């Protein structure tokens, strides 16, 4: 079904899937009994209701929001850099945000705004460093150069974060920083959700409104310019929105890898490559992907599995499947 109407219908189906996953996640947990929470518990058990309202719901909201952001940012980076193999984890953005967060915890008192702000600044610096390094590398094509530069910048940041860990107070600060390295949403409260919401929502709105222009920005610069686009300026607007939203997400959830790389590819398989549909589909499917992984993280075992490990595992498997079946939907 290649017609645009058929693909728009698929976008609606994805919307349905979102509602189903959100509703389903509310009914999944380990209290009062493992896996599915019986409806009777919601009727008769005030503790279960309390738990759903104050622990499960904020966590579902956070997982969904963070998935939307990481996937949207991945889709934006891929189109703007005309590179199907990048996401925030490959461009120094996630590692920059984690470094900024660690720095704020150890040296800036660790308030929520300091952590988010510092994460955003270093995420932006990571992206800028990757981009300018890639332009100076004299090896391989643009896709390879950007990946190489991103790996180098990410590694530098990881080393710097390691030094901060070394200096951190092992009882108070170190557990907080270690949490970023693994990535997870345990302990998320409504307060956390409300702290990132006013940052994430405006950024997602900007990305959504400019979605069609992503197609223009994925053309060669001269061609985009001939179509009235100011490539440099428009890229900057989209990148700033994507990076700020990513930094906010990372400051709460830590490193949730592979979402931004794999989900946009899946979205393009489902609704086509036109960003007018591919971006909303990426946003929604990103939310679903992280939400489902987080459901597993909290219910699969009696203890919590770090979310970052699950997204990496499923992300890598899906990536390999697409790669081996040549279904990446891109020309390199």
């Amino acid at each position, binding site marked *: 079904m290649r017609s645009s109407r058929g693909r728009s219908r698929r976008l609606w189906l994805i919307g349905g899937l979102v509602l189903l996953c959100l509703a389903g996640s509310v009914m999944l947990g380990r209290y009062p009994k493992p896996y599915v929470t019986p409806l009777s518990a919601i009727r008769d058990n005030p503790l279960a209701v309390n738990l759903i309202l104050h622990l499960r719901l904020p966590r579902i909201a956070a997982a969904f929001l963070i998935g939307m952001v990481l996937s949207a940012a991945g889709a934006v980076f891929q189109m703007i850099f005309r590179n199907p193999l990048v996401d925030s984890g490959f461009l120094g953005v996630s590692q920059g945000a984690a470094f900024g967060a660690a720095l704020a915890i150890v040296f800036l008192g660790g308030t929520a705004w300091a952590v988010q702000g510092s994460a955003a600044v270093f995420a932006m610096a990571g992206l800028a460093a990757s981009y300018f390094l890639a332009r100076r590398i004299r090896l391989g094509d643009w896709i390879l150069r950007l990946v190489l530069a991103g790996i180098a910048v990410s590694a530098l940041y990881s080393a710097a974060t390691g030094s901060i860990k070394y200096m951190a107070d092992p009882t108070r600060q170190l557990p907080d920083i270690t949490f970023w390295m693994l990535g997870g949403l345990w302990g998320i409260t409504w307060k956390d959700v409300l702290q990132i919401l006013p940052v994430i929502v405006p950024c997602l709105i900007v990305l959504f409104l400019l979605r069609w222009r992503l197609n223009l920005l994925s053309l060669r610069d001269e061609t985009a310019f001939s*179509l009235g686009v100011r490539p440099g300026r428009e890229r900057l607007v989209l990148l700033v929105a994507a990076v700020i939203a990513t930094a906010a997400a990372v400051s709460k959830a830590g490193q949730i890898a592979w979402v931004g790389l794999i989900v946009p590819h899946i979205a393009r398989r489902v609704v086509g490559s*036109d960003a007018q549909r591919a971006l909303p589909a990426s946003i929604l499917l990103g939310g679903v992907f992280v939400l489902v992984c987080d459901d597993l993280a909290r219910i699969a075992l009696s203890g919590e599995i770090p979310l970052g490990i699950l997204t990496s595992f499923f992300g890598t498997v899906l990536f390999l499947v697409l790669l081996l079946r040549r279904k990446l939907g891109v020309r390199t």
Partner: protein
Amino acid sequence: MSAAGILLSVKDLSFSYGPGQPPALSSVSLDIAAGTVTALLGPNGSGKTTLLNLILGWLSPARGRVEVAGKPLDAHTRRELSRTIGLVPQDEHVTFELDVLEYVLLGRAPYLDFLETPGDEDRRKAALALEAVGLSALADRSIAALSGGERQLVILARALAQEPAILLLDEPMSHLDIANTRRILEVLADMKKNGKTILFTTHDPNLAAAADIAVLLKGGRVLADGPSASTLNERNLKSTYGVGVKVVMLDGHPVILTRA
């Protein structure tokens, strides 16, 4: 030719890609009349693509200026220019597999506000542009699944959806076989009939012979320009390419043969 008929004018244009670099163009002047087809002919590195990028406004000249409809480029808004000049690059690297119609729709960008997405009218115009190059049947096909010739025609359709008065084409036929080259030339002839002003670059004198006007470039300078039938002579071509050629006339058009 009266100055009133001149749509695109290049006056004393010089450009170099950086300090210390040799000039890519030196004192190039051209007047292009509305509704004509002009070929910029020259060997690789003669400055053809640079000239197109200067006319587009993508590059800024070190000296001289470009005028469109009697006004310097910077007296037009970016939007006006994008509705007036369309570009067909040598090849378009489309990283993500857009469908043909989705790609052609990108040509409607000059008519859309910053936050606007294409509507029914834009879709209709994109479909018309695709029809003009004879590829309506491929509207739903992925752009990655096209042959070289189809691809070049689709890129041309994207520029036509822009409804520009002037079309700039960079080596539009350099990778194509004879049949597809002929098809592109036919489409360009149709465009001319519809009043478009066309400027294309080529390194093949026989393709330049299909244009009304030929401009011969070498080392960033204009060696000769004028009606292609008289400009593409043995003397001019020898000084452009540095090798002897034989020109024979066939049905009033020059045919250029390389002399063994």
